[in-house]
């Protein structure tokens, strides 16, 4: 009997969350761990700005996957290139396909037309998933950094939006194909990334509810980034009043400030815990907590280390 697949066993690992919650670092750390385990992970960023360039300190991550460091590969899935590839694939006469793609006017048209960018992106993701080297998949696994929650919803929603609008044809086959890849829980999983603060937590709960209602994709884990450590033990906190009072009486001002600082840190810690508990109540996903100093400033070695601990934690949580 094969054990239940854990995170890295999926083919397509999608990540979403509001901007600034640390998706990029999270994805980079997990990919580094996948590579350390002898896999060949590919990180796919969607079009806007290649954040991975900063993390891996390389310039120019383009449409063609390249190795960015420590066995991790990355690419920037921009819409124009994806569309061109799609045309070349689906239009029998290559010359026509290229002529049309070079037409600036038409490019603008496709930019403004609805769903075209989603279709082109989904097509490329399917292609990447299907790439083989011999009998093994070329990319293993594929991490997709979905820039914003809106983007994720739009992509995942595409099959249902299109259902009412498209008839038969290559498009239908593509959508159906992607739909089955997306809906297969052994292959695809969407994880959420958030912060233990009121607004991100609230938005994550709403996003989760929406995703559960739509049932387009298997939901994986909830990563909570920048979780503060408990600054004082409960025992220590019990002494705080007395120290604060005495320090004020004898004029040890630094200590008075320290007490105030500790109280603020305790409040921040308590708020973070409250938000995590609230998400634990409303979101039926395993929660993986990440420390405060988890960002690009750790450097690759630091990120790889966190990635190793992270995957160990994940495997423990799903065991």
């Amino acid at each position: 009997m094969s054990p239940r697949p854990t995170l890295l066993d999926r083919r397509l690992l999608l990540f979403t969350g509001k901007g600034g919650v640390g998706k990029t670092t999270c994805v980079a750390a997990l990919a580094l761990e996948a590579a350390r385990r002898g896999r060949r992970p590919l990180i796919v960023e969607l079009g806007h700005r290649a954040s991975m360039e900063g993390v891996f300190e390389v310039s120019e991550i383009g449409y063609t996957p390249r190795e960015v460091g420590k066995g991790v590969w990355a690419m920037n899935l921009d819409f124009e290139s994806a569309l061109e590839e799609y045309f070349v694939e689906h239009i029998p006469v290559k010359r026509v396909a290229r002529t049309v793609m070079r037409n600036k006017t038409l490019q603008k048209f496709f930019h403004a037309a609805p769903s075209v960018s989603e279709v082109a992106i989904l097509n490329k993701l399917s292609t990447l998933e299907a790439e083989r080297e011999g009998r093994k998949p070329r990319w293993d696994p594929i991490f997709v950094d979905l820039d914003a929650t809106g983007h994720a919803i739009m992509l995942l929603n595409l099959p249902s939006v299109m259902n009412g609008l498209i008839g038969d044809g290559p498009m239908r086959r593509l959508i159906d194909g992607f739909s089955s890849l997306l809906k297969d829980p052994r292959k695809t999983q969407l994880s959420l990334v958030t912060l233990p603060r009121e607004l991100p937590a609230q938005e994550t709960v709403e996003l989760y509810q929406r995703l559960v209602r739509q049932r387009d994709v298997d939901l994986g884990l909830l990563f909570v980034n920048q979780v503060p450590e408990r600054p004082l033990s409960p025992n220590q906190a019990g002494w705080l009043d007395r120290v604060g009072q005495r320090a004020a009486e004898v004029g040890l001002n630094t200590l008075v400030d320290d007490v105030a600082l500790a109280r603020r840190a305790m409040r921040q810690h308590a708020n973070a815990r409250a938000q995590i508990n609230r998400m634990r109540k409303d979101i039926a996903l395993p929660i993986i907590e990440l420390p405060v100093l988890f960002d690009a400033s750790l450097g690759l070695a630091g990120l790889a280390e966190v990635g190793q601990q992270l995957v160990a934690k994940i495997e423990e949580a799903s065991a």
Partner: protein
Amino acid sequence: MTTLDELLLSRKLLVAVGPGGVGKTTVSAALGLRAAELGRRTLVLTIDPAKRLADALGLTGLDDRIREVPTTSLAAAGVVVKGTLHAAMFDNATSMDSLMARVAPDNATRDKVLRNRVYRAMAGTLARSHAYLAMERLYEVMSSGHYDLVVLDTPPARNALDILDAPSRLASFLEEGVVKWFAGQKQGSGWRAKLMQGSGAAATKLFEVVVGKDLADETIAFFDAFYGMREGFHERAEATQKILRAKDTSFVLVSSADATHLADAEALAQGITSRGVPIGLAVFNRSYERLVANDPLSIITEAGELDIPSALQTLFQGDLDHIEREGMRSLLASLHGVRQAAAIGNARALGAIRKLAALLPKDVLMLIVARLDGDVRDLPGLHAMAPYLAVPRQLDGR
């Protein structure tokens, strides 16, 4: 530019841009409040504020009407508001519909667009529409003459550059090549007719390959109807572009001191400057811990030493039993640990801010705000930001 007050008194529009999750809306509201204190009739246009801030601004309704923010709660704190503070919140789907209705030349065109399935599928989800709507709303309030200063809080998207590009993108799309190519046919004028002939036929075919025939038809019908609105859009696009690039407009870059946020802020700043729009102000929000209560503006990066035995002696003389002494000793050690962590965090933050500041033009006014207590729940809470806004920061390495 030397102080924030001078900026607030000399500008008609401030556009706050920055990555999500840095408190951009709070900063926008605090800037608006300060301007109102200075006597200006101020409007803060915001998108999707956190619930408590929305409550603080009185934006509890679901609609997007402009409301006056009562400032009486500030009088108790001795703060005089000489001007007025107004606020409004965007609501996407309904605003999009009313925008279409306003721009449409006649009711038939309006209905055609509003009923189109492609439009319906797009209207709620199209991320880019945020930017169009923000610009549309801005155009409206700026030309009303009701306000001396408008503070525009932009969508919390990484691609906030859409604010600068959105108006002209749609207009140029309608106006330039695409339209010349497809439109202007007498019989069955517009997209469909043109698409059916010559190179247009290839285009239709191609489009059908991508999205299928039904959706292609519906989309063409959508652009057909849209085309009828091009003049309306074009006018507004020109007007808003003019406003955004006016001398009395300043962009405000808002960021935290987190590495991720600063990287996004840097990309944004480059994008903005490369479009020929100057940044007047950079606000680094929630950037440091206050280590000294009576000097909250100091960004302290050295924790100093704590001699625990001597501190215990000063505090309690010999007045502790063994257990108390051990408890106190461990508490003081932890307290110092918290201070050290905060100082290290401050040093990191300051270093990261300096790095970004070095990339900004020399005349940009820099403000750094400490991590304040809790969320902003009311106007006095918002006013807690005031001391930090009053002090321009000189950053070495610039």
